[in-house]
């Protein structure tokens, strides 16, 4: 192969290698892009306070609520809803309390993630205050009590008459310090 041909080939090789590098960068750029899209569309915003619905206060349909909690196997949390069942009315301001214990002998930082059953009820349970809005830190063995304040939106479809609200508590790695 003549050398002029070879240098033409090298130019193309470099361009293609740059495309590959740019695409590697693109994979990382997807992380902030994903975040921006989720924020702009309001997807995934389980951990942000909602506004109280317009008709709040005007008592409406009766809903049966169950409060629950889950801890992944191997994590040293103890979580207990102080109220486990409650009959509520849509539009009513409700407060329930959760008690969370760090049952380990080290400082831990936890993050609670709420889940609803049926999932469709999620968008109608408007949380005004919740410990799940931010990471919570615990000293070894410490127990803390947290309120959850919410309103069930009267706009919720009538066919939902029972709602379970369950929290899973995760450990935020690298925050507690061993």
């Amino acid at each position, binding site marked *: 192969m003549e050398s002029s041909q070879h240098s033409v080939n090298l130019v*193309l090789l470099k361009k293609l290698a740059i495309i*590959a*590098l740019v695409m590697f960068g693109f*994979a990382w750029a*997807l*992380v902030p892009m994903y975040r921006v899209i989720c924020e702009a*569309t309001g997807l995934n915003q389980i951990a942000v306070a909602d506004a109280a619905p317009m008709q709040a206060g005007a008592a409406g349909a009766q809903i049966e609520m169950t409060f629950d909690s889950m801890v992944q196997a191997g994590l040293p949390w103890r979580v207990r809803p102080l109220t486990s069942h409650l009959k509520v009315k849509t539009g009513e301001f409700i407060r329930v309390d959760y008690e969370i214990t760090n049952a380990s002998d080290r400082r831990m930082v936890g993050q609670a993630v709420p889940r609803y059953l049926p*999932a469709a009820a999620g968008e109608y349970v408007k949380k005004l205050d919740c410990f799940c809005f931010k990471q919570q830190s615990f000293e070894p063995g410490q127990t803390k009590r947290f309120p959850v304040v919410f309103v069930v939106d009267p706009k919720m479809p009538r066919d939902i008459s029972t709602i379970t609200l369950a929290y899973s508590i995760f*450990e935020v790695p690298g925050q507690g310090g061993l």
Partner: protein
Amino acid sequence: MATVTDTQHAPHSHGKPSGLSRWLTATNHKDIGTLYLWFSFAMFLSGGVMALCIRAELFHPGLQFFQPELFNQFTTLHGLIMVFGAIMPAFTGLANWLLPLMIGAPDMAFARMNNWSFWLLPPAALLLLASFAVPGGAAAAGWTLYAPLSTQMGMGMDMTIFAIHIMGISSIMGSINIIVTILNLRAPGMTLMKMPMFAWATLITAYLIIAVMPVLAGAVTMVLTDRHFGTHFFNAAGGGDPILYQHVFWFFGHPEVYIMALPAFGIISHVIPTFARKPLFGYTSMVYATSSIGILSFMVWAHHMFATGMPATAQLFFMYATMLIAVPTGVKVFNWIATMWEGSMTFETPMLFAIGFIMLFTIGGLSGVTLSVAAVDIALHASYYVVAHFHYVLVAGALFSLFAAIYYWFPKMTGKMYNERLGKVHFWWSLIWFNVTFFPMHFLGLAGMPRRIPDYALQFTTFNEIASVGAFFFGLGQLIFLYNMLVSIRRGEPAPQKPWEGADTLEWQIPTPAPYHSFAEAPELEVAENGAIRAMKGGKHH
């Protein structure tokens, strides 16, 4: 008719190093192609053994042979090895062997980089296989390596991530070589809109690889830093999101399935015209269909994620975009059928595999369109229906096309004819047992059997038994292929320069077996569509 045979130089006369160093230091595109093909066959066998372990366990409900942990390692490594070890390297091997012959180039553009591309693969394969032996065993998160499973497992996962990095670099270097060769080294007269469909298909595939393998590398690197360096890309508690992993993975993953399909389309576009003795119908539309599949494949990734709770508008977008891909794919299928229409067909083994490909790949395409309906997919996702779908497009698609290619070009590569009778037995055997294995999986999926599980409810027993029996016979049949190859390489009938009457691309214009240094001087060509050679001047081999 162009008949330029280089009688001054008997093939094998000089310039070919011997022994092990010929292979370790190989820079000749034919040697490297041969290495790729044997490597991928070895990977095909080891991935196949894992598949048989899976089918043995699933023959009956309950746990027979393997604990669930090991079972999951088998499904994961089976997928990874077949995708990255068998199918992709086999296509790269064919491209290495054939591209320079088809376009009149002396070799691939970067011979030494070519050597690197290949020799990165065996260490990666060893890493994958060795990971079974480390504490915690091999990766067991499925070939998609979804977080958060992949951010939790033992060091087998680290070895898998490293192997993916290596194989990614290998395939990117291989692709750069392919693109530069095709764009810069075509002989005079071999214009882009005349060159063979196989060259077009590998060109577009190579671009896809360069665009998406780095994205996969990025995704698994994030898994790696989540595992060891305290980042939280995919860790919900740390502010990350496991769904993000799926988006990044499938941005790679869907183009990847076309990386395994486009070269197959290219092969079929050679075999069908040859044995129908007619030029390929609609060559230009084939080129445009291939390109538009390549472009569309970037816009449909979330059809793998209909069950993740996407907003309805996004589901609709990905659903319609996915259905749109069926249009250019359909164009190709109709073009192949139109090529056969009123042709004077004969049914040698490559043609049988090509026709088998068209029929079965189309079934896979149809189940794909079924899955693309978001509302339906929510029920079928992660069920055996999906397993049936992708084995129709990958086994009866990619793999059958590879068999067609090997039988078709075997005479040119080795100078010998394969055993036609054994070839036909191999085809019918594979066709029947393939369907016995995978067709019942549609029913299993529709009835609700989930994929990637070692045990299942009793009502799924019969179809699982059928599938397992089919799998073992299918596997056995591949030994017929191996036997045919080994015996024919040594003792096959000598092959003529052009064993197939209807073959008209450039590689059939040179002596058989292809001289070690073909087209040391570029020929001057007069070319019709799909690389058909009308006239050839010059072109020296030695």
